[in-house]
């Protein structure tokens, strides 16, 4: 890139009238024109490069468009019992007290999203609590303690774990982990939030580990060398010098891990039990997450139904939430990268 800039500079210098006043000689590079086909191909590349932007905008527009009529269509609102029925408890016919119920199929569709939100929150928080400490510790080992050879084996191994399809992790949680958890803890339900969180951790750990390890390794050597020279022990260097210096990177790792945990579908769909209950604090009860609801129900709804619209609304919320998390996480990493590059100069 720099050399190219040099070249460009050279060209402009050649094009400028030089100190010899004789203008008879053509400046270098003026006799040659880039062929039209080359320029066309280059323009095609520039246009195609917008595909990613187009995709992200299109995803949002398409999903939001399906959800939007919910807010303007009085008939659709009536069918679900008013917009406030989405969030607030209500005394449904046949029930004694006000309750949050997600029961989209039936004479009166009950589309209260609170059970889905609590289910998502429960599984996600459990998975994050389990996976972040393990990921950080593993990142500390690989970046600070492991020798070169060991690292060359460990990093690909953990990358390999990241490449296991989530349906395989879901299957493993469903068939193996669920039975193991039940026989160990004697849980009432074989499939529950805890099993789903275990499976989910397997998906998040490689992601959080990789980002955290990069962050720990990006801490300038001078810092740890200085601390070691002052007589600090290795663990003191790690805990008081390297970790604080890598804190933004670790935060980014957590945020991106959280985004992945909220958005993961197959594992929770297969292992969480999928009962829509409002029970935030019992890990051994079942949970129905937003993603699992979408995967399980969208195939059976008639397009345009209020239920269909609510599902797309959930999808929009999911998209928006993960979008913000990713923006924040990626922003932190970008800023760090720029700072490190600036320091290197």
């Amino acid at each position, binding site marked *: 890139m720099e050399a190219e800039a040099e070249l460009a500079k050279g060209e402009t210098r050649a094009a400028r009238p030089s100190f010899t006043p004789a203008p008879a000689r053509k400046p270098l590079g003026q006799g040659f024109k880039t062929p039209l086909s080359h320029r066309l191909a280059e323009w095609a590349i520039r246009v195609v490069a917008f*595909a990613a932007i187009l995709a992200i905008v299109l995803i949002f527009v398409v999903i939001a468009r399906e959800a939007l009529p919910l807010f303007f269509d009085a008939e659709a609102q009536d069918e679900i019992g008013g917009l406030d029925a989405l969030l607030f408890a209500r005394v449904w016919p046949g029930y004694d007290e006000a309750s949050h119920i997600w029961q989209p199929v039936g004479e009166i569709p009950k589309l209260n999203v609170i059970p889905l939100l609590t289910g998502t929150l429960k599984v996600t928080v459990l998975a994050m609590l389990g996976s972040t*400490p393990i990921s950080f510790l593993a990142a500390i080992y690989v970046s600070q303690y*492991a020798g070169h050879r060991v690292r060359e084996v460990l990093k690909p191994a953990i990358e390999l774990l990241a490449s296991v*399809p*989530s349906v395989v992790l879901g299957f493993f949680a469903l068939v193996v982990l669920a039975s193991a958890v039940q026989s160990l803890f004697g849980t009432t339900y074989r499939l529950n939030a805890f099993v789903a969180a275990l499976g989910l951790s397997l998906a998040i750990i490689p992601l959080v580990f990789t980002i955290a390890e990069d962050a720990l390794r990006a801490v300038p050597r001078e810092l740890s060398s200085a601390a070691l020279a002052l007589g600090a022990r*290795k663990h*003191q260097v790690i805990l008081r010098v390297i970790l604080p210096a890598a804190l933004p990177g670790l935060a980014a790792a957590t945020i991106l891990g959280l985004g992945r945990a909220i958005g993961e579908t197959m594992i929770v769909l297969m292992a969480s039990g999928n009962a829509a209950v409002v029970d935030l604090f019992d890990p051994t009860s079942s949970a129905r997450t937003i993603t699992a609801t*979408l995967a399980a129900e969208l195939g059976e709804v008639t397009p345009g139904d209020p239920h269909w619209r609510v599902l797309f609304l959930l999808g929009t919320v999911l998209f928006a939430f993960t*979008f913000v998390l990713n923006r924040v996480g990626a922003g932190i990493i970008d800023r760090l990268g720029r700072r490190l590059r600036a320091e290197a100069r």
Partner: protein
Amino acid sequence: MSTPSEPPKRSTLLPTRTPAGDRALHAASLAAVALVTISLFAIVGKVLWEGVPVLSVEFLTEAPSSDLLGGGILPSIYGTVLLTLLMTVCGVPVGIATGIYLAEYASHRSRTASLVRAAVQNLAGVPSIVFGLFGLGFFVMMVGRGLDDALYPGEGPVWGQPAVIWSALTLAVLTLPVVIVTTEEALRQVPTELRAAALGLGATRFQTTFKIVLPNAAPGILTGVILAVSRGAGEVAPIIFTGAANFLPYLPTDARDMFMHLGYHVFALSTQSPNVDSARPFLFATVTVLLALTFGLNLTAIVLRNRARRRHTP
């Protein structure tokens, strides 16, 4: 490293706390690594242990019986391969072009380039089920129905229904970031001297990019393509509504056909089968095939990438 039996002189020089903390952190971090690697081995080991004995030539080359509890998984293997092939054809050229733009054409301070990068980062973080909603809402219902209205007005749905082409296009969008990021990285690893030499010899920028830079970055780009294929082959959530079928008595030969899929097969059989116990051997064997596919692809990618990196570091 330091034990209590060390000469006291040194410990007075270094008035630090007991190294127990050091040992504790070392042990804890080692335990975490061990836990992660053991989990990986546990998953792979358990799947192979129960899956490999069930594998046979018939299992790989026969169609399943209609209750999915007998026969083989040929349609699922075929469907997965067909899907990823279509996905690669549709998505990879776009990804590579974007990578070329970011690495070769966009300037460092280009606003457009940073916007494209941000979009790529965000695209990589969109939950896979949201891609499923997008595929259904956009490809099946907008593009497909639009084609039907234009080409076959008044007839039943021809394009406007779940089909392998819509699943492939959805996955092409999903795997776009993988291709873009690896292509850009691979192009940036090509030494600038090569570009300077080509330009200096009078090649146009286009010739330099396509005849000099791109061939040199080929192994790295191939890595990205393989990673994208591996990712695409394993994703299930985006194809649930856009084309995957529970059971199909024929092999799809048309872009508008539905298809069977290894991952979807595992999902459907393990959650919707009335008789999970008798399905268990088949499930493990199917997972074995799926894991072999993704691991094989990923290991190839890792080896290729290491080779590509070594090539450009003198």
